Structure formats: structure tokens, C-alpha cells
């Protein structure tokens, strides 16, 4: 017993006061990309060629567009750009309501909006989610799971991951949705009481990620069920996940 008290004393109070304070990110953390104004070198394709996952394309004016829904945040494009137009910031607020909202072609980004008033009235101050890993590699899952630890203390925001879809207001889905999880995912979705919400977390769940195009997967959740919130990253940082959910609850 004394040992337990001693340990409690040693471990201190570690819950980070988010959103009152902004959590410190590692100096090398890669957050939201920005594309500076200015012209690309004519005929340049360096960023597109450097991207390992085809997350980059050139827009009508031949300037780069980064799809955060596929992006690994590897910075290869940033290094490749001869005009230094692509810059990755430390901004970890990456969630969007629509897939198109994840396309970045400027220094601006429209952050996710809260769910509709009717849903907010129904859910009140809490949100119960059922997590489904559908071909996820356990990185997105781990960075979701970590939100329950004292550092984040998810429960203080009224958010809880529950054991049954019947107790849930929505699903948080990770993974590209493997063929072998399609049925289980759809059944879990159908078991939700309505109205319900769906959150696609991580590049795989949004677009298929590194598995895009494999016949063994469904290239993301959106091809099977409607998605209300997209949280990009490979995997997203836990603060990105938490920030996205809080925004969606209208708490930020």
C-alpha cells in the first residue's frame, strides 16, 4: 500500500490542459502542409515524382495539390520542390468534414465544422464511439487507444469508447477496410442506433492509404458507408485525433 502511494506521488498529475493550452509537438513533427503563392518552374513535376503514394497532383494552374487523405507526411515533396513552395507546418489540426476539404493547394485550410445542431442536441455533451479496425496496422488504433491514458484523459471531454455498437453514437474506423472485414464493419454500422456518425481515421480509412488499389481492400470507408469526419495522417498524432473529434462536437 505504501509503495502504491509512493508511486502515485512520484507519477504526479500529468493530464495536459488541452484546449486551454496547446500541446508541444516534437521539433521534427510534420503537420499540415502549406503551398506558398508563386509560380512553379514551368514544366516542373518534381513534387509529383517524389511522392511515394501519389498524394500529389498538379492543378489547373500547374501548381501542386496535396491530398492529405493519402499523404504520409514524409516531406519528400518539400525536399524535392526547387522553388520551396511546399512547407510542412507544426499545425496538428487536420480534420475535415469532406474528403475534398483535405486537398491543400494554398497556405489556408478550412478546419472541420461541428456536427449539425440536431445531432448536438441529441448527443448532448457526450459522445460514445465504437472503434472498428478494418485492416488497420495498429498504429492508428494505438494512437486512438492512447487517448484514454491520463495524459489525454478522454473521458473528461465526455468522449468514451464503448464495447457495443448498440451503445454508441457512432463509429471511429481505421484501416483501408479489408475485404475480410467488410461484412463485420457493415454489420457493426447497422447495429448503431440512428442517427449516428462515422469518423474515418488515418490515410488508410480515408483513401486506402498505402494499400490503395489492392483488390484485398476497399480503398477506405467512404466507398461503403457515409463519413462525417476525416482525420488524416499515417498515423495521425493523438492530438490530431482528439482535436478533430472535439471540433466535430463543437467544443473548439
Amino acid at each position, binding site marked *: 500500500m505504501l509503495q*502504491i502511494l509512493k508511486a502515485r506521488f512520484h507519477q504526479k498529475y500529468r493530464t495536459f490542459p488541452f484546449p486551454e493550452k496547446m500541446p508541444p509537438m516534437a521539433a521534427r*513533427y510534420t503537420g499540415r502542409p502549406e503551398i506558398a503563392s508563386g509560380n512553379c518552374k514551368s514544366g516542373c513535376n518534381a513534387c509529383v515524382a517524389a511522392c*511515394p503514394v501519389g498524394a500529389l497532383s498538379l492543378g489547373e494552374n500547374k501548381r501542386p495539390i496535396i491530398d492529405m487523405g493519402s499523404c504520409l507526411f514524409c516531406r519528400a515533396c518539400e525536399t524535392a520542390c526547387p522553388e520551396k513552395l511546399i512547407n510542412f507546418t507544426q499545425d496538428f489540426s487536420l480534420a475535415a468534414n469532406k474528403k475534398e476539404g483535405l486537398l491543400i493547394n494554398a497556405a489556408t485550410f478550412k478546419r472541420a465544422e461541428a456536427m449539425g445542431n440536431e445531432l448536438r442536441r441529441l448527443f448532448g455533451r457526450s459522445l460514445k464511439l465504437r472503434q472498428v479496425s478494418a*485492416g488497420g496496422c495498429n498504429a492508428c488504433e494505438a494512437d486512438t487507444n492512447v487517448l484514454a491514458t491520463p495524459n489525454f484523459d478522454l473521458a473528461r471531454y465526455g468522449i468514451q469508447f464503448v464495447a457495443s455498437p448498440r451503445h454508441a453514437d457512432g463509429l471511429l474506423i481505421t484501416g483501408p477496410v479489408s475485404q475480410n472485414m467488410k461484412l463485420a464493419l457493415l454489420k*457493426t454500422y447497422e447495429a448503431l442506433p440512428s442517427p449516428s456518425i462515422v469518423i474515418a481515421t488515418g490515410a488508410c480509412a480515408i483513401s486506402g492509404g498505402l494499400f490503395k488499389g489492392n483488390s484485398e481492400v476497399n480503398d477506405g470507408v467512404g466507398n461503403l458507408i457515409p463519413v462525417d469526419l476525416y482525420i488524416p495522417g499515417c498515423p495521425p498524432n493523438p492530438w490530431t485525433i482528439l482535436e478533430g473529434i472535439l471540433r466535430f462536437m463543437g467544443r473548439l
Partner: protein
Amino acid sequence: MKNQLILKNGTSASLDKMPVLESDAFRQHLTNLLQKGSRLSALFAVPTEQQAIVYAAVADDETAEIELFASKCGRKNISLTPHIPQAHWFEREMAEIHGIEMVGHPWLKPIRFQPRKGQTVEIIPGATEYFEVKGEEVHEVGVGPVHAGIIEPGHFRFQCHGEKVFHLEIELGYQHRGIERAIPGMPHEKAIRLMEAVAGDTSIGHATAYAMNIEALSGLKASQNAKIIRSVALELERMANHTGDLGALAGDVGFLPTSAYCGRIRGDILNTTGLICGNRFGRGLVKAGGCGYEIDSDLKKQILDKLLLIEADLHSAIDLIWDTPSVVSRFEETGTVSREDALAIGMVGPAGRACGLMVDTRISHPFGAFDKFAPAIPLIELGKLGDVNARATIRWLEIQESLRLIREMLAALNSEPAGYNHEQVKPVANSVAISLTEGWRGEICHVAMTDEQGQLKAYKIVDPSFHNWFGLALSLRDQEISDFPLCNKSFNLSYCGHDL
């Protein structure tokens, strides 16, 4: 045998050197090697136009050598499993992917529910025949694929009498994403990212194995600094996962202090990896030919300072487990796997070591910086080996050993660059390379083969979970069904690493 192909870890040879034996000779040779105490690191088939070729990779832990040999294989093969239980899962895999019948295999059924090439019938995952125990009041409990927590999917079938489990059968495959099939022809910059997602909690372990193969095939050598940075990251990965699991084990017996603290400390360890490469799982850190990131003296100091705090927190949180008799008594004599069984089914990693097997590729087949910085395998004298307590103890000892190794390795860093040059990645044609790394769950084995153009034509991945899932099933024999979460966490095997 006259022609032998023997490789050291992380080296390559021309495919022409691969001995192709008659199937009887292949079986005989494999049996001989395993009887002498070598381990089956990989057994897999590569289809050719007419038939398939079966390859075996057998690791000799005494000599640090890996022997590779092959056999042409028809549609029907005599199963090795009755004599070599280690082969059982590999043979099921080959039968499933390539439609090769394994005559005499005692339990030939799918492991991943993955459609065969050209197969059109719809496959329903998990729908198969299960081992059934019959008798009065014997009942069956099915769990999954979707479980109650934030955890990957898998299906577990228990045959029980009251609370007592006679038998557990595990069916996986829900996470199958077609990784091995996707690799041939994929650009290496993308493929290494894919390796990081084989099992996200083992990003460094799998990416390192891939990098070693590509380096061997391209005649590249990672600098000593690059090797150190990768090995430091691998040890951080080990620490983070062991810490998380020790916390989860405490949670599973309702001991909340350790569970709460460890959950947070695990995050601190992941954040230490984040200091090196910006990503908590080490994404982008390992590259073919070197590292994506350097550690300068400032960063080194930051890491060391952070480790000092982590170490104190770990001792405060984890020592509580063994200070609390009610926790230890739940761990002790729960989920025991005997040394004989562990050896027979080829268990690896801490789960194998907890049964008294001296298996650790960092020592037996040194790679990265481990040739100079070898871990001491913690030998545990717990009386009864192979239970949850042994697995937990081993993991705690390994965390402390990882801390020592990381400090020693960081001290050996010099100013030489650790970077890589993508242009130099040019695998030679018609070759084979093999690499073993010691992930936190145990031996990771990757085998790469190139075609006439030097493109990868086949790539085999064996996650440690592939060897160990059956060990988890064995650990449940004669246990209470309520012991399952505890046993499961003490192994914490990978679903996606198995399913690929």
C-alpha cells in the same frame, strides 16, 4: 549435401546457387537440420509457370548461418507437419495461397481466408470447420472478429466445460491487405513505407528487415551511425510495446495504478522516437542504405534526458507489480506453455524466451549495431517457466536491457552522416537475400528474390506472430476462460502482421 547455399543475416547470393532438391531429399534435409536444433525461419512457395517452388530458410543459432534450399512442388505434397510441427502454419499458408495439397497435414484449413488467384467463389472469413470437443455439458464460446476494445479483429473459438477451456482455436485473416502480392515492382521508397505498415507497432522491425535485404541486393552498406540510429529506434519500439503491455496486464487483473502509469509512459517512449523522426512510430526513419534522420549532440542529449525521466517513471510504475502479491498470484501459473511445446512449434521472441528457449536474433544472428552492442538475454529462474508471470518478467528485464543498450549505442555515435542515397538502390538481378531482425515480439524474417531486371519478383514476410499464435492457443489449455485476456496480453500478437 554437396551444393549448399548458406548466408549470413542480411546478405545475398545468386539464385543459381540455390539447391533444388527432390521432394524426398528436401524433406529429409529439413528434418535433419531441425533435429540438430536449427529453426525454421521461413517456408514458402513461389509459383512458376508450371508449378511452384518451395523454399526453406533454416536458421542455425550456433553458427549464425541461415541455410536456404528449395524443391519443385506438385499439386500434392507430403506434409512435413506430422514430424515437424514448426511447419504446420507455413503449410496451411502454402495450401491456402497456392492450392497445394499437403497430404497428411493433421489440420489443413485456411489461415487468412484469402482468395486464390483465379478463384471466384466468395469467401466468408471465419466460415470453416472448427475443432469440436464433444461430451456432456461441453460448450463452445465464439468471440470476434469485432472485439470489445480498441483492438484488431480476429476470431477465437473456445471449447469449454464450465469455465474450463479444453481447447482454443484461433482464426485470423480479417486484416489481410495483400502486402506480399503488392511488393513486386513497387518502388522501394513506397515499399519501405508499406513495410512500416505490416504491423504498425513494429514499424522499425519490419522496415529494418526490408532495408537490410535491399542493401544486400544492391551491395550497399549502411554507415555505423545509421545502424546505431536504427537499432536505437528498434529498442525504443521494444520498450514502448513492453511497457504498454505490462500496463495492460496489470489492467486485466484490475490493478489500475500500473495500468494508468504505463499507458502514459508508453506514450513518452513513443514521443522519444518522435524526437528522432517526428513520428511516434518511427515512420520514415529507416531507409534502404541508411537513415532518414540524423541524431546530433543536441538531440542525443534530449533523448538521454528524456530516458532518465522515463526510467524513473518505469521503475515506480512497474516495480509495483511484483510488490503486490495479489497481482503476482494472478500471473503465476496462468497460461503456461511448456518448453517442449514451445520448441516443437517454434516459438520466438520473449514468449519463447519465457519458456526457456534461448532465441534472440540480436545475439544469434547479429544485425545493425547489435554485433557491437549485444543484449544479455535475461535468464529467469522463476521455478516454473512459461507462464504469464514469466512473460511479464522477461519483458520488464528486456525494457531495462534496452535502456542500457540505447545509452551505450548513443554514446558510440560519431559525426559521420547516417543518411542514404536513393540513387544507389539498385538490386542485382536473379538474386536472393535474407534478413532477420529481432522485433519486440521476436524474430522477423524477410526473404527477397529478384528477377532478370533486378526487380523484386517475390517477397516473403514472416512476422513473429506467425510462429506464436499457436503458442497462445496452447497457453489456454486447462485454463479458466476468464484467463484469456491475461494470456492474450502477455503475448500481444499481431493480427495484421500475421494477416499481411
